[in-house]
């Protein structure tokens, strides 16, 4: 231990995973894609496999609930240790003009784990936000597909700064915080569409495909739960009462919509939709009918004209 203390890089600045932060973080897909694009760009520009990437996180923070919505890149001054503060302030104000509800809530970088260098940088951000967050993209972790593909994590980790008191000295450390991925509806559609390559197909087809994919995921997750329960029954796996309790709570809440008011709303909604469909088909039939009448008029009119010409008479047609 003492040998490692002298070597700066070896002291872990991350508290062991038994301690987790109390923040509940909601991460949107846009920051994730932004950070990866920034990283790729710098890789190309500087031709290094691990260039130093730095950027700011924008979002909202309500007490312990944090939502990370957008990001922007930051510039470094000189020797990569000091942030260009004027740039940060300018950019932040520019984003404030367009998105007044978003605030500066932290920063991001690309590294396998946080180090003391990041602690140093972190302290430079405390002037802008009371408790900035650190979001890290881990470039090598877990990008290869796992065996069943269901339990894969994004290569991102979020950290909060805290003070650790040990041996009468205090030092700043990072403690890991867990996050969830949240999307708004528009964001989900955009992300989904780009994931599929931006193509098209009839809209019914793509809509059904998305639904099917989502239902399949649900099915896979349920299978995992069933597997767990059967192995518990067969005394192969340790019984975790917490998990079993939550499973039974889930089952007790099904069927999810026996509520009378819900049923009424649901029926009203489906009736509205079917009414729209009925009206649409009525309009279509009206159009077809109109078309038919027009064609009939045309045919009979030309037939009448021909017979009139043949007769050579000036008999006034009282067809119309």
């Amino acid at each position, binding site marked *: 231990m003492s040998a490692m203390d002298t070597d700066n890089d070896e002291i872990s600045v991350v508290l062991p995973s038994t301690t987790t932060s109390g923040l509940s973080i909601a991460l949107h897909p846009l920051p994730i894609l932004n950070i990866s694009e920034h990283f790729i760009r710098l890789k190309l520009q500087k031709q290094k496999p691990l260039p130093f990437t730095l950027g700011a996180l924008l979002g909202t923070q309500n007490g312990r609930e944090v939502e990370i919505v957008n990001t922007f890149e930051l510039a470094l001054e000189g020797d990569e240790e000091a942030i260009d503060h004027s740039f940060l302030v300018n950019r932040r104000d520019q984003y404030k003009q367009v998105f007044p509800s978003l605030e500066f809530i932290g920063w991001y970088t690309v590294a396998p784990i946080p180090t003391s260098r990041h602690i140093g940088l972190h302290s430079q951000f405390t002037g802008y936000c009371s408790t900035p967050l650190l979001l890290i993209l881990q470039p090598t972790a877990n990008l290869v597909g796992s065996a069943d593909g269901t339990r894969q994590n994004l290569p991102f980790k979020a950290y909060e700064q805290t003070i650790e008191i040990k041996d009468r000295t205090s030092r700043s450390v990072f403690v890991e915080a867990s996050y969830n991925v949240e999307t708004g509806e528009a964001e989900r559609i955009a992300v989904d569409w780009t994931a599929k390559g931006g193509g098209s197909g009839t809209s019914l087809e793509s809509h059904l495909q998305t639904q099917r994919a989502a239902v399949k995921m649900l099915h896979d997750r349920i299978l995992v739960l069933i597997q767990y329960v059967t192995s518990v029954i067969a005394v192969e796996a340790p019984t975790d009462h917490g998990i079993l309790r939550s499973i039974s709570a889930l089952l007790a809440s099904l069927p999810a919509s026996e509520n009378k008011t819900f049923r009424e709303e649901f029926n009203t909604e*489906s009736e509205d939709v079917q009414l729209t*469909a009925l009206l649409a088909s009525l*309009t279509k039939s009206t159009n077809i009918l109109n078309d038919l009448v027009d064609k009939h008029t045309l045919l009979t009119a030309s037939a009448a004209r021909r017979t009139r010409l043949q007769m050579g008479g000036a008999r006034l047609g009282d067809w119309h």
Partner: protein
Amino acid sequence: MANTALKTFSIENDIVELSPQDDIYRFDEDADRKINREIPWSKDPHYFKSCRISAVALIKMVMHARSGVPYEIMGMLQGKVVGTSLVILDSFALPVQGTETRVNAGAEALEYMVAYTQGSQSAGRPENLVGWYHSHPGYGCWLSGIDVSTQMNNQKHTDPFVAVVVDPNRTMTAGKVDIGAFRTYPENYTPPNAASSEYQSIPLSKIEDFGVHANQYYSLEVEIFKSSLETQLLDLLWNKYWVNTLSQSLLISNRAYAVSQLADLNQKLSKVQSSVPGTKASLPVTVKDSKDGKKESSKEDAKKENELAKSVKDSSKIAAEAQHGLIAQVIKDVIFSIRPGNGQQADTSKITESMNIG
């Protein structure tokens, strides 16, 4: 010790290799300068054929447009020219508050634009401005008269420039991003053949504006690209947000927009009501009839009677979208509400019913 050495080595050399598809992100200054000197687009008004948009730029545009509903929002695009396609790598929003019918960049926005681009250079984004985007919330992707004149101006002074339009409302109802990229023809240039684009329903209030200027610009094919890392991340992301796909309901989130569409259709139909008695069927054009005179008159007749047909198309679109929402709801109902062994025949029959329409 050997362990850590190996780890450092593998970290430095094991990073996911850049695949060729990532090459588009590289900014090649020389190539950029060269093409800006040659300016091949000034000789051919139809030079640019496609517009490739990066995933990040697209999502930012959609989010910005969505946050601005019901106002039109506006922003700029950064990128470069590659061959006959305009590549858009990033987008940023402008602090312009549009009223519902017009968006114009004032002095404040120009300042913002300049400051932002200068800042971008120092933050590692050296690309130039190659376009602007704005939103048409609820009325489709096309260029209005003001847009056409703005874009013609842009193309005169700051070519290469592209105009991108995004519709956040249609995006929500259709389940895919409604986006279009356009370039205007220079003044006094008539395109060789007025290619008819794919039909899109335009609200009554805007239909004049659409029709008058429809021949002054053409649309570029839109492609989306993403880096290899982004592709992997998107796959991983799906693991997280599939829950949202199931839980969100199209019918509820689009209620206001659906209602406004129905009201608009109602107005269109009442207009059509007066013109329906005057419709005539068009004679099928036989070979010996295809002299110019006959063709002209039959085309006009075709235009008149198409009013009702257009309304039919609009109504089927509205009904189809509502059906999509209902299908999702019924699927959820079946999954979460059926008790085993209770023979819920009614629910499954609902599914077959809703599938039969359209």
